[in-house]
C-alpha cells in the first residue's frame, strides 16, 4: 500500500539508469574514433574526471571539505612510479590495484585523525597532510627522484599485449575509460545505497546524524578511504599513461584544480565531475591558445560567475531550468 506513494516510488526508482546516462560513454568512445590525434588530451580528461569523481564522493556526498585530495592522487602515482622505476613491479593492472591500496591506506590513516575535525580546521589539516607528503617526496630523492621526479617508467604492456605508446596513446585512452567506467559504477552504486544515503545525512546535518545513532566518524573514515583509493587509482593511471611522475601530482595546484572542476560541474551530483572536467579542460586548452599569458584570468572570471550565481555548478543550472526534479542526485 504505502509503497505505491509517489515519494516511495521516486525513492525506489531514483537509482535506475536513465537513457541519457549512456551519453558520456558514447561521447568518450566517439572521441576515440573521431580524434585519434587528440587521445593524449582525452586521456588526461578521463583521468581528471576519475579524480573529480573521487572528490565528489568525499566532498559532494559526505561533505568532507578538503583541499588536499591530491595527496591520494600523488600517493597512487608515486606507488606506480617507484615500483616501476626501481624494477619491483611493472604489470599495470596489479600496479593500479597497489596504487589504490596505498592511497586507501594513506586516506585511512590520515582520516582517522583528521576527520575528528570539521570546517576550516579540516581544510587546513588536509592541506598540511598533502604538503607533508609533497615535502617527503621531495626529500626522499633516492626513491622519488626528488624535484625532478621519475621519468621513462618501464610499464609492461596491458594484459601482456597492448603497449603504452606515448606518441599514440590509444591503449592509455581505452584503459583510462574502462577504469573510469568501473570506478564510476562503484561510486554510483555506493551513493544510492543506504550507506550513501547516510553520507548525505552527515553532509546535511552531522549533529542530527549523531542523534539518530549513526557512527558518524566511522562512516566518514570509510567514505574517505574509498575516495582516497579511487583518487590513488586515478594517480596510478596518470603515472602509467605518461610514464613519469613528479611532485606536481602531489601539489596544491592539482588539488585546487579538481576542486574548481567539481564546483564548476556541480558537486553531490554524479555527473558533475564529467561536465566540470570537460568544461574546465576545454576552456583551459582554448584560452591558453588564445591568450597564452593571461588565460587564467578567463577561468577566474568564470569561477566568480559560477560562485555568485550558480552554487551548484553547470548541472545545477541545468536542473533549475529543467522540470522540477532531483536532477543528477
Amino acid at each position, binding site marked *: 500500500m*504505502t*509503497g505505491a*506513494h*509517489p*515519494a*516511495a516510488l*521516486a*525513492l*525506489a*526508482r*531514483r*537509482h535506475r539508469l536513465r537513457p541519457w546516462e549512456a551519453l558520456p560513454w558514447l561521447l568518450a568512445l566517439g572521441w576515440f574514433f573521431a580524434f585519434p590525434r587528440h587521445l593524449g588530451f582525452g586521456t588526461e580528461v578521463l583521468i581528471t574526471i576519475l579524480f573529480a569523481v573521487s572528490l565528489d564522493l568525499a566532498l559532494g556526498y559526505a561533505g568532507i571539505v578538503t583541499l588536499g585530495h591530491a595527496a591520494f592522487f600523488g600517493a597512487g602515482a608515486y606507488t606506480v612510479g617507484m615500483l616501476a622505476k626501481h624494477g619491483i613491479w611493472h604489470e599495470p593492472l596489479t600496479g593500479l590495484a597497489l596504487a589504490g591500496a596505498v592511497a586507501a591506506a594513506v586516506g585511512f590513516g590520515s582520516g582517522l585523525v583528521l576527520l575528528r575535525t570539521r570546517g576550516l580546521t579540516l581544510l587546513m589539516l588536509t592541506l598540511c597532510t598533502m604538503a607533508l607528503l609533497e615535502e617527503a617526496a621531495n626529500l626522499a630523492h633516492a626513491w622519488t627522484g626528488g624535484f625532478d621526479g621519475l621519468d621513462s617508467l618501464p610499464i609492461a604492456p596491458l594484459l601482456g599485449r597492448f603497449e603504452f605508446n606515448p606518441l599514440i596513446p590509444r591503449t592509455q585512452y581505452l584503459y583510462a575509460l574502462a577504469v573510469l567506467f568501473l570506478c564510476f559504477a562503484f561510486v554510483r*552504486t*555506493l551513493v*544510492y*545505497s*543506504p*550507506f*550513501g*544515503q*547516510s553520507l*548525505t*545525512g552527515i553532509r*546535511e*546535518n552531522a*549533529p*542530527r*546524524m*549523531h*542523534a*539518530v*545513532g*549513526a*557512527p*558518524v566518524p566511522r*562512516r566518514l573514515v570509510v567514505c574517505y578511504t574509498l575516495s582516497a583509493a579511487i583518487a590513488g587509482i586515478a594517480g596510478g593511471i596518470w603515472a602509467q599513461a605518461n610514464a613519469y611522475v613528479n611532485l606536481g601530482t602531489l601539489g596544491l595546484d592539482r588539488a585546487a584544480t579538481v576542486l574548481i572542476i567539481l564546483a564548476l560541474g556541480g558537486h553531490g551530483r554524479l555527473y558533475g565531475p564529467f561536465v566540470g572536467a570537460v568544461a574546465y579542460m576545454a576552456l583551459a586548452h582554448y584560452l591558453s591558445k588564445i591568450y597564452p599569458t593571461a588565460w587564467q584570468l578567463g577561468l577566474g572570471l568564470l569561477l566568480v560567475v559560477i560562485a555568485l550565481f550558480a552554487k551548484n555548478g553547470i548541472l545545477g543550472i541545468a536542473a533549475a531550468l529543467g522540470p522540477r526534479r*532531483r536532477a543528477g542526485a
Partner: protein
Amino acid sequence: MSAPPLEAGAPPTKTAAPLLETRALSRSFGALTAARDVDFRLEPGARHALIGPNGAGKTTFVNLLTGVLAPSSGAILLKGRDITRVAQAERVKLGIARTFQINRLFRGLTVLENVYIAVAERTGVAPSKWRPAGLRRPVVDEAMALLESLKLASDAARRIAELPYGRQRLVELAIALGLRPEVLLLDEPAAGVPSAESHIILDAVAALPADIAVLIIDHDMDLIFRFARRITVLVSGAVFASGTPAEIGANAAVRAVYLGQASHG
C-alpha cells in the same frame, strides 16, 4: 493511567523502578552551573514536563541525558544500568531519542529521506553499500507509515526547505519516532511555530504512543498542563519543585519564580 498487571511472582517494587534516572547530576561551564545535583526520575510511559525560566538549564539537562554533554559529576541510569559514560549514538540504540528546539533536519533531502535515515540507522540497514536504498521495502514502508500517522504523507516527496515551519517541526518528531524510542525527549516541540499552526504539533504530541516515556520541555503552559501528568520545575540548574500539575499550579513559590514571571511577559 493504571499500572500494567504484574507478572506472577514479580516483586511489587518492580513497577516503581524508573526507566530513566539521574542521581546528583551536575554540569558546570566555568563559573556557571547549568545543572546542580539534579535527582530526576522518568517512569515508563510517563508524560513528564520540565519547565523553568530561560537559562534554567533545561536544554543542558536534555544534552546530558542524550550524551551530547558529559556531566561534571553524578550519574545517569537507564533501567538501572549506568549509562553516564555511554556515547551519544549508543544511547540512541538503547532507546533514548530526542528532538531539537531549533530544527536539525536534512534540509536538502525529502521528508521521506529524512525519516528513512532514522529508520535505516535503527534497523541496521544504514551501513549497507550494495542494494539501492529505495529497494529496502521494510525501511521505506515503515517511514511512509510513520509519515501517514503524523499526517505528513502528502509532503513525503517535498524537500524540507520547501515546507512551512510547522510541518518541519513534525518532521523533527517523525525522525525521533523512527528510532522507536522508549524515552523521547521533546525540546520545545512547538518553538517557532505560528500559533495558528501550533495545534498540529500539540495534537501530534498528545497522540504519541502510550508506551513511550515522554519528557517535554516547553514554555506553553496550556500545552504543559494539558499534556503532562507530572511536572518538574528547574531553576538555576537545580530542581526547584516536582509534582502533579495540580500541585505545581498550587505551589506559591513556583508561581512566584516562574508562573508569575511568565504572566508578566
